[in-house]
C-alpha cells in the first residue's frame, strides 16, 4: 500500500475523494458497502438485504442526504420467508410527518388517567366514606371574604359528601349568603343573635357558643356523618378529610399554630434563636411509645406574655386558646338525643355555652382518638388575621355607581410611609408593590369609575417600573 502510495499518490487521493463524495450522497458508509460486496457471502444473505439490492433501492429512491439517523424513511426490507419473518440488519427509523403531540390523543389519555385514578381511589382509598359535616362560625367583616373563600374552596375540593353549617354572628346577612352560595355545596346558614365583640377573648367565647349552635342543628336534623370545625381563617389540607374518615367516635388531629409574629420584638427573636431552632408550635394529641394517647401538646404562651393582642385590631400577636376546636372531630351520632352512643359523651343540651375547651364535651378525656399517625402529621393550620374593626369595604366587594363625595375614614389604616419590612422575609420584588397598592387604594375610594381603568393602567405601569427598579438593584 505504501509502495503504491509512493508511486501514484494522486490516484489514491482522487479515489479517497470520490468515496467521500459518494458516501455523502448515499448517507451511508460506502466502505462498508464495498467490503460487503468483496467479502464472501455469509450463510444468511437471504434474510439480509443484500448490499447490491440496498444500493439499488437507494439509487431508485434518490435518497435525500439528510442525517442518516433521522428523517429518511427507508423502505422496509423485503420480508423473506426462509427462517425469520423479521429481518436482521439495518432498518429505517420511522418518523411520522409531524412528530408532535396530537391534542385529541392527549385529551383521551388524560381521560384514561382520570379513570384509572378513580378506580385506584375506589380500591385503595377509604372504604364507605361517610358524609362530612362542617361547622363554621363567621361574621361580616373586611377579611371575611378572604377567609371564607379559602375555606369554601377547600371544601369544594373534598371528594366526599359534605354539608356545610355556617353560623353567623349578628344574624343572617346577604353578604355571607352570597359568598357561600357560590360554592355549590349543600349549606345550612343560620344566624346567631349576638354581635361579635371586639375583643379576642369575647370572640373566642362567642365562637364557642356558635359552634354549639351548629352542633344543635346536627342533633335536630339528625345529620349522619363526621363533624369537623372549620374556622373561617384556618387552612385545611386535603389529607385532613381523608384522615378524619378513620374516626370512630371522638378524634383529635394536630393543628399547626401560625401565631402571627409580625410584631415580635427583636429581642424575642434573638432569644429564641439562641435556645434552639424555633419550631412551629403544634397543638394536638401526644402519644406515648405504644401509640396510645398520653397527653396534649398545647401552645406555649410564655414568650408572648404581655404582648398579646386584646382587641381584634391590635397589631400584636393573636394567641390561640389552649386547645383549638378545629383540631377535634366528632362522630355525629354522639350528638343525637337517642341512639347508641358511648356513655362518656355529655349531652350538648345540658351544656350552656361556657365551655373552656372541646374536651369538656366528654367526661373522660382519655377516650379521644389521636388521628394523623398519632398526631405526628399536621393536617391543618390555625391563623388569625383581621383588619381593623372600623375598616370599611364595599358591600359584596362590588363598587357600586360611585358616589360623588365619599367620606374618608377617620383613621386610615395605612400610613403614608411604607411599613418597615425585614428584607429576608419577602422577596425584593414585593417591597415595591405594597407601596403602590397603598397609594392607589386610598385613591380608589375617591376615584370615579371612568378613571378606574386609567388608574389600573397606572398601577400596572408603576408595577412594571417598580419591577425594573428592583432588577437594577
Amino acid at each position: 500500500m505504501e509502495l503504491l502510495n509512493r508511486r501514484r499518490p494522486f490516484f489514491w487521493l482522487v479515489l479517497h475523494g470520490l468515496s467521500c463524495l459518494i458516501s455523502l450522497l448515499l448517507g451511508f458508509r460506502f466502505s462498508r458497502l464495498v467490503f460487503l460486496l468483496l467479502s464472501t457471502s455469509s450463510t444468511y444473505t437471504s434474510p439480509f438485504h443484500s448490499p447490491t439490492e440496498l444500493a439499488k433501492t437507494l439509487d431508485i429512491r434518490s435518497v435525500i442526504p439528510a442525517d442518516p439517523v433521522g428523517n429518511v424513511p427507508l423502505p422496509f426490507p423485503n420480508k423473506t420467508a426462509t427462517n425469520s419473518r423479521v429481518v436482521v440488519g439495518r432498518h429505517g427509523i420511522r418518523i411520522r410527518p409531524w412528530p408532535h403531540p396530537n391534542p385529541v390523543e392527549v385529551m383521551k389519555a388524560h381521560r384514561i388517567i382520570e379513570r384509572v385514578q378513580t378506580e385506584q381511589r375506589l380500591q385503595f382509598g377509604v372504604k364507605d366514606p361517610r358524609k362530612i359535616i362542617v361547622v363554621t362560625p363567621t361574621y361580616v367583616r373586611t377579611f371575611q371574604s378572604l377567609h371564607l373563600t379559602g375555606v369554601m374552596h377547600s371544601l369544594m375540593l373534598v371528594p366526599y359528601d359534605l354539608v356545610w353549617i355556617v353560623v353567623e354572628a349578628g344574624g343572617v346577612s346577604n353578604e355571607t349568603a352570597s359568598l357561600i352560595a357560590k360554592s355549590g355545596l349543600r349549606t345550612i346558614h343560620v344566624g346567631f343573635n349576638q354581635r361579635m365583640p371586639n375583643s379576642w377573648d369575647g370572640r373566642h367565647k362567642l365562637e364557642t357558643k356558635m359552634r354549639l349552635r351548629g352542633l344543635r342543628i346536627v342533633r335536630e336534623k339528625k345529620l349522619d356523618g363526621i363533624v369537623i370545625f372549620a374556622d373561617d381563617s384556618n387552612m385545611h389540607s386535603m389529607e385532613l378529610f381523608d384522615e378524619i374518615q378513620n374516626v370512630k367516635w371522638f378524634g383529635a388531629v394536630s393543628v399547626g399554630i401560625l401565631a402571627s409574629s409580625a410584631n415580635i420584638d427583636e429581642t424575642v427573636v434573638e432569644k429564641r434563636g439562641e435556645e434552639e431552632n424555633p419550631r412551629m408550635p403544634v397543638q394536638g394529641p401526644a402519644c406515648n411509645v405504644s401509640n396510645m394517647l398520653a397527653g396534649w401538646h398545647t401552645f406555649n404562651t410564655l414568650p408572648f406574655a404581655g404582648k398579646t393582642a386584646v382587641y381584634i385590631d391590635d397589631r400584636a400577636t393573636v394567641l390561640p386558646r389552649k386547645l383549638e376546636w378545629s383540631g377535634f372531630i366528632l362522630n355525629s351520632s354522639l350528638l343525637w338525643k337517642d341512639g347508641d352512643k358511648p356513655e362518656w359523651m355529655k349531652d350538648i343540651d345540658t351544656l350552656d355555652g361556657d365551655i373552656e375547651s372541646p374536651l369538656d364535651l366528654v367526661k373522660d378525656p382519655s377516650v379521644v382518638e389521636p388521628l394523623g399517625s398519632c398526631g405526628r402529621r399536621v393536617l391543618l393550620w390555625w391563623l388569625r388575621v383581621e383588619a381593623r374593626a372600623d375598616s370599611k369595604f364595599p358591600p359584596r366587594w362590588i363598587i357600586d355607581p360611585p358616589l360623588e363625595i365619599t367620606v374618608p375614614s377617620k383613621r386610615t389604616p395605612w400610613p403614608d410611609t411604607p411599613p418597615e419590612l425585614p428584607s429576608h422575609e419577602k422577596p425584593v420584588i414585593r417591597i415595591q408593590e405594597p407601596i403602590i397598592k397603598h397609594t392607589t387604594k386610598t385613591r380608589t375610594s375617591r376615584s370615579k369609575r371612568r378613571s378606574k381603568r386609567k388608574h389600573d393602567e397606572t398601577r400596572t405601569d408603576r408595577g412594571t417600573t417598580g419591577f425594573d427598579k428592583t432588577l437594577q438593584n
Partner: protein
Amino acid sequence: MRKCLWLWGLLFFALGFAWSITAERNPCTERISGSAGDVLEDDPVGRLKVYVYELPSKYNKKILQKDPRCLSHMFAAEIFMHRFLLSSPVQTLNPEGADWFYTPIYATCDLTPTGLPLPFKSPRMVRSAIQLISSSWPYWNRTEGADHFFVVPHDFGAYFHYQEEKAIERGILPILRRATLVQTFGQRNHVCLNEGSITIPPYAPPQKMRARQIPPDTPRSIFVYFRGLFCDVNNDPEGGYYARGARAAVWENFKSNPLFDISTEHPTTYYEDMQRAIFCLCPLGWAPWSPRLVEAIVFGCIPVIIADDTVLPFADAIPWEEIGVFVAEEDVPKLDKILTSIPSHVILRKQRLLANPSMKRAMLFPQPTLPRRCFPSNIEWPCS
C-alpha cells in the same frame, strides 16, 4: 411431550414463591382463566423428579465466588434455578428414577469490569461439563441429552454471542442440540429458539423491588414510562441496527410529547416511577427480551411490547395478549393513537390481571437463603 408439560409446571412453580406483599394488599384481582390459570396454580410436587448433577465447583461455586455481581444481574436465572432445585422437594437423589436431569453451569458469569458478560469461554465450559457428565454417568449417552435441561439466560440463548448475526452464524452449540434449553430469548421462527425450548423471564431482584414499593393509593399519573437507551452509540453509530430502529423511532416521534416520560437517564426512583405509570414500554434492544417486562408485571404497569414475533416467557400458559399490549415495530409512530384508543374498561381489566399475585409469583425467582430441604406439607414454601 407430557414430560415437557411437567417441566413447564416445575419451572412455573420454581419461579413462584414468597411474594407476600401482594397477599397483604387488597385482592381486587382477577384470576387468570383457562389453562393458564390452572398451570399457575398447579403443584408438581410428587409428580416430577429432577436429578441435579454434582459438578465440581469450578463450574459453579468458584465462578460465583470470583464475581458475586452475577447474583444480581439480569442473567442470574441460572444461579437461582440451581439454588431452587437444590432445596426443592422435586429434587431426587436417585438418578434412576429421575424424569429430568439438570446440569448446573454458570456460563454467563464471566463479567467485564462494567458488568456485561463475556460469552466467549462459555461454549468450552459447557462442552467440558457435558463431557464430564457423559463419562461419569450413563444418562447423557442414553438419550443423547434429550431429558437434560440447561439454563442459558444469555442474549441469544445457547448461541453464546451477543450479536445476532454472529449468533445465528454459529448456531446452537451442537452438543446441546437435543437437550432442552431454558432460556430468556424467544422469537418465533428464529433459529435461536429451538422446538422444545422453554422461555423463562429474565432475573429481576425481588428484594430490591419489594423494598421500593409505594403505597397502592398513590395515583398513577404517568401515562407512558420508559428509561433506557434509544441508540447504541458504541456499536451502532449510524442507527438502524440497534433495536431494528424501533427505539430510535420511539424517541424521535415522542420526545416532545408530555404524555411520554421517556429518557436515557438512570434515576434512583426507577421502581417508584414504574408504580406511578399506567403503561411501561418494553421495546426490543439487541435482543427482544429484557427485565423490563418482569419489572412492569411486578409493579402493575401494563407492558407495551414492541418486538415483532417475540415469544414471551411461559407463552403457552400466560395469556400475554390479555395482559399486555403488543405493538408492531412498524406501528411505532402511531403509538400514542394505539394506546389512547384502548377502552378504559380493557385497561382496568389488564390492571386487575396484573394485580393477581400468581402473575407476580410466576415472574419472580425465589430467594432461598440456605439450600435446605423443604417439606411439602404446605403450599407456602418456607425456603423463600
